């Protein structure tokens, strides 16, 4: 069973549908203690970083404990940004801090000084940086669907970058923690392949 964390940031319908299409057993825990029984955790979310503050100390402790027991975690969009130390979007709201670096707003300017629209909305290509369980079988330059204004930095944990005026982390992976800035549940076959890869890292017996 996979725990899909609902902290009120956007609707979970699409994420649930995508996992259901892949025959994954999904539950939305009502209390932090329910995470204990889950074999993996998915943190979705769209919108403002401050929304992650709804994940109070008990939720954070339960998610950390799940990671500590080696269970996979996937952050999607805002859920991925939350894995970092924090974000300029809500400076006084700490992230989970399991990945190094801070999120900041897309500059909205490309290398030629041309201005670009922010938010970054639509399909953009993945520039694969290294191997990772989460990107197994994903073709270089595959396109996925983004919608965001803030971005996570490119670090050693970055598996794939995308570019909107500047490169940013599109897929991260560190041990059994992974995150995607885009919406795999809305990214067609490529998105489903990435979710399937995540499910393969989950030990279903737990």
């Amino acid at each position, binding site marked *: 069973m996979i725990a899909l964390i609902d902290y009120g940031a956007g609707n979970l319908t699409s994420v649930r549908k995508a996992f259901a299409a892949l025959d994954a057993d999904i539950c939305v825990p009502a209390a932090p203690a329910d995470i204990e029984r889950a074999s993996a955790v998915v943190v979705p979310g*769209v919108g403002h970083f401050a929304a992650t503050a709804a994940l109070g100390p008990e939720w954070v402790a339960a998610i950390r404990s799940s990671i500590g027991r080696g269970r996979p975690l996937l952050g999607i969009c805002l859920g991925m940004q939350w894995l970092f130390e924090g974000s300029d979007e809500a400076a006084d709201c700490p992230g989970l801090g399991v990945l190094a670096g801070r999120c900041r707003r897309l500059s909205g300017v490309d290398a030629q000084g041309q201005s670009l629209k922010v*938010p970054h*909305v*639509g399909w953009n290509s993945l520039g694969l940086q290294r191997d990772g369980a989460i990107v197994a079988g994903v073709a270089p330059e595959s*396109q996925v*669907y983004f919608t965001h204004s803030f971005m996570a930095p490119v670090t050693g944990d970055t598996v794939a970058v995308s570019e909107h005026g500047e490169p940013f982390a599109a897929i991260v992976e560190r041990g059994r923690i992974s995150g995607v800035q885009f919406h795999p*549940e809305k990214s067609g076959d490529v998105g489903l392949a990435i979710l399937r890869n995540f499910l393969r890292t989950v030990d279903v017996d737990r």
Partner: protein
Amino acid sequence: MLSKRIIACLDVRNGQVVKGVNFEGLRSAGNPAELARRYNREGIDELVILDITATIEQRQALADTIRAVARELFIPLAVGGGIRTEADAAAAVEAGADKVSLNTAALANPSLITTLAQRYGSQAVIVAIDAKRAPGQAEVAGGDDHFAVYARSGQSLSGRDAVEWAREAEARGAGEILLTSIDRDGTKIGFDCPMTAAVSRAVSIPVIASGGAGTLEHFVDVFTGGRADAALAASIFHYAETSVHSLKQHLRQHGVPVRL
């Protein structure tokens, strides 16, 4: 690089896709789930389901249509037409819509934009603007054009200008603008590029151009001169005049970034 999006619009009435000209004279174009499947196979980037019915019973049929499409397609799905209240939007989202498109209701009650943006995020809120040039007004690129915004499917003047209204919608929390030229709707003579460019320059959120697609060249025009971030079409795809795939190949050949 961010791709320009190609969006197929399904105008649904009584569970069937229909299409008219200048917002009138509807004819049937098939089953929505079947069309959605075909477009997905051809590489459509996004789908819009527009409910052009009005009654409560038919709204239930719409929810079934949304469910049928959302169950098997994993690309962004927007739903519009007749969304007047937060409850209407919630029903569409519950059925599987990723975005809701507001038109008349946003004009009548602009705070609905903010309410929905706070509840679902700005990315889930499209403000659809149906606009028409003043009679006899020439198209002058860069000129001080006025684009009158209409409510109720082009039936009544709202008293607003498209550029001003787009700016206000953005400020109130809209995540995208769907701009339809009433003059061009269904005519296949090309998008209103000057109008699209005027709105696109005025806002930072994406602008989806709609109304008038007839040839592959029209799409090149709206993505270059029209500064559109996405283009929406219905007739050109429904009657298989152009496949989504061949349109995208044409765009790529002309230097427009697309997802192929």
